[in-house]
């Protein structure tokens, strides 16, 4: 170890100095951190400057998607692993928090059972399944948010990377993974509420989930999580570790022959990315108020990939931009012209891959140059 000095902050600071996109992103997040609570809580409702709680939640949702997109960009943009199953990790994180929120309902459920959630009473279950034990404790739920997706990613990645499943094969089996989970979670016997999933949440840590203050708190947490994740990812890709990842992306065999255990690198970044996706899901569920098996749908995972592609992969901030832009467009279109949305999304896939290999970010860079 004498040949190295461990100064992560200096690597990060040096990287950020050259990272214009990151600077802009962090500045915007900082601004949101101040302006959103201010315009929502302080500015009176009648004012033109007032931000509705609905909008706060909507922005919060976009930022959760952005965090998920960063997780996908980290493995795809930097390590060449195209995951078509990242929403599996997202949904698992969401379910972990959903279970906690379910247990917070207590006797306020339709059946009023102090322990069992409504759907279990409905299924005539008598006792709480083992995997629901302890989920009434917030710290346990938080650990599960990263542990469960991380563990799944670890097992899946260990199997896949060790046997050198790469490229489209890997993409296809990630899709199979999330599809299998989709089917599994639809089953009532799984104990996650089947088709309906988990919903009707009442409170978080004793505070009413619907209260504007709570909404702002969730929003602020999401902004901080996104900023933190961005910094962590920026550090990773700026470190030598990040350069190894990109080496693997560009010439996997060569990376092996100069002595890097490619499988370990892939596994680390894969598990880290899955955990980020889990955190994104955990922040998403209390804001939208529901988690059900449809979150596992393979199409959702592919949609995330297109956010990253549209924004510009391999840049991190591009993923954020793509997630927010595409989802804003989705919100707009599904309200204004729902039948147009799928055409637009489909066209976006085709055009972005054919004409925008570097995404919106690449386009802006070219315009600037």
């Amino acid at each position, binding site marked *: 170890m004498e040949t190295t000095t461990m100064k992560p902050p200096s690597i990060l600071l040096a990287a950020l100095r050259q990272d214009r996109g990151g600077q802009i992103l962090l500045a915007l997040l900082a601004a949101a951190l101040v302006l959103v609570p201010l315009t929502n809580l302080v500015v009176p409702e009648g004012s033109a400057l007032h931000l509705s709680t609905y909008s706060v939640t909507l922005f919060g949702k976009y930022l959760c998607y952005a965090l998920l997109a960063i997780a996908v960009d980290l493995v795809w943009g930097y390590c060449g692993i195209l995951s078509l199953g990242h929403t599996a990790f997202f949904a698992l994180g969401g379910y972990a928090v959903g279970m906690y929120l379910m247990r917070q309902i207590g006797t306020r459920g339709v059946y009023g059972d102090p322990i069992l959630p409504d759907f279990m009473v409905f299924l005539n279950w008598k006792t709480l399944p083992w995997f629901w034990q302890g989920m009434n404790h917030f710290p346990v739920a938080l650990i599960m948010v990263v542990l469960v997706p991380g563990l799944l990613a670890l097992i899946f990645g260990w199997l896949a990377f060790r046997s050198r499943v790469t490229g489209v*094969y890997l*993409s*296809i*089996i990630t899709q199979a993974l999330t*599809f299998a989970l989709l089917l*599994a979670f639809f089953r009532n016997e799984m104990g996650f509420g089947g088709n309906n999933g988990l919903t009707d949440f009442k409170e978080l840590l004793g505070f009413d989930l619907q209260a504007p203050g709570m909404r702002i708190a969730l929003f602020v947490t999401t902004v901080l999580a996104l900023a933190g994740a961005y910094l962590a990812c920026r550090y990773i890709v700026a470190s030598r570790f990040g350069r190894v990842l990109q080496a693997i992306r560009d010439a996997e065999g060569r990376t092996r022959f100069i002595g890097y255990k490619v499988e370990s690198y892939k596994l680390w970044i894969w598990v880290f990315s899955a955990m980020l996706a889990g955190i994104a899901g955990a922040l998403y569920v209390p804001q939208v108020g529901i988690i059900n098996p449809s979150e596992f749908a393979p*199409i959702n995972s592919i949609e995330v990939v297109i956010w990253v592609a549209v924004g510009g992969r391999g840049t991190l901030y591009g993923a954020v931009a793509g997630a927010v832009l595409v989802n804003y467009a989705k919100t707009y279109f599904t309200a204004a012209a729902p039948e147009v949305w799928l*055409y637009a999304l489909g*066209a*976006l896939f085709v055009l972005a891959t054919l004409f925008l290999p570097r995404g919106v970010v690449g386009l802006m860079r070219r315009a600037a140059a």
Partner: protein
Amino acid sequence: MRYARRRFHVTASVARTTRWHRLFQIFSPLAFALLALSAVTANAAEEAPASNVAAAPATDFVGILSQLPNAGLSDKQQLLEQLIASHHASAQSVLKALLDEHLYSRDSDGKVFITEEVDTGLRLTDPETLTTAGTEAADGFSKVGTNNALRKFLRGAIAQFRLDDPDRSVRLVAVHEMLRDADSATVDLLRVRLSSEKDSAVRKAIEIGLAIADLDSDDAATRLAATTALSQTLDGDAYNKLKAISTANADGSYAETDDGVRNAAAKAAQRIEFWRGIYGSVETLFFGLSLGSVLVLAAIGLAITFGVMGVINMAHGELIMLGAYTAYVMQQLLPEHLALSILLSIPAAFLVSGLVGVAIERSIVRFLYGRPLETLLATFGLSLILQQLVRSIFSPLNRSVASPEFMSGTLVINDALSLTYNRLYIVLFTLLVFIALQLILKRTSLGLKVRAVSQNRSMARAMGIRSEWVDAITFGLGSGIAGVAGVALSQLTNVGPNLGQAYIIDSFMVVVFGGVGNLWGTLIGGMTLGVAGKLLEPAVGAVMAKIVVLVFIILFIQRRKQGLFPQKGRAAEGH
């Protein structure tokens, strides 16, 4: 309690009837047998029971019928026997109506009608001509009454009619119905019928039924013979009966007292169980193969675009969907000709999906060769557009495509095994498509070019093959096959915009599992997955079976990336 009291009441009323009637009750089995004989041989009509005290001179159908309402219960049977003996075409309908309590007489003129209750009263049918005779208020009519004994007689008589029906399937149903609650009378009736029955299936059904009845015989030799006879069948009732008599009761006693018969019965039951198990497995295998065929059909187009060309076409499922909609449209155009419309939709769907495929290749895929992940994304976008297009044109609702006559129904192989025709046709169709595809790839110059380009593009170009043209045609071929698969799927499931999505993951799994670039691998891989799924289904349920198969493939790909049948050689090693 209520039921018991009513029973008592009926018994009491029977007790009050004439002595003759009691006699008849005792001898009714005999009467049945005689009746049966009388029906078989027309001239036996005169040989009515000896106790017959002719109540009326009338012998014509209408005349007999008119006496029916006012005759006493005891005389009614004699009248009915005469009615049967008259061999009038409507006799069976009258008996049926009487049994169902639909036979009424009009109070004003005593005329008898077969009736049906409607809102406005009774809809009348003339019993002689079986034509409608208007509708009248119900209060002007009286029901022609029956009692237990008479109803029993009626059931026997109707069964007799149906046993004599020229249609073998009617006879077969009649036999099964009679056997369901067989008594000595029906057994005798069946024995008589057996002597004249020509149809082998009906004969067999009667034989089995009689043998089951013989198991209750007092004579051990008869029981043993019946056991021997039954040991050669696969009949479920026979198995249950044999099992019942050879299994110990709770107190250790046996229903069958004779050791020899019991042992034979146990052996026979075992044998039937064994063969039913075998045929059950064959059936599961068949279900598996038909499910596998669907997978193969869905995947085989992909085996060409992905396997041979290396193009990830996520819109493959939508090409299947387009084929299914082609079948739907074709059926709308030719609503009167179901079979023709299905046959025509096969080439039509091939053309529609094939042309769309060529368009996809020319407009998108060709710009992305060598970039599989980008191809995946672009074609996925395309799949969304195609889905929405179909939604806009046909509505988001599912459509159903009717199956032609020859595809419905069941092929009965024996008592334990029957195969539905639509599944059978799917299996055959899949094999046909597979063979056709093999021939195209192995025997035509197009196939030669396709293989040349897929193995070494630059060399193929150097030899003057227009690789661009070959790419487009190959992609079109794979897409066209997807369309044909869609026609087949339209016969099994509803046609909707999401049809393709349901198959895309399965299709990729099959191709990857079988080994990319290997059509045989796709065939065997798909069939294997289908059979495995069906084998798992009884144990874990359909959804869980699907999950297990998915997880299995995920693990399998880890062990053998190249699939079941990898392409070998240096070229496959890659860098």
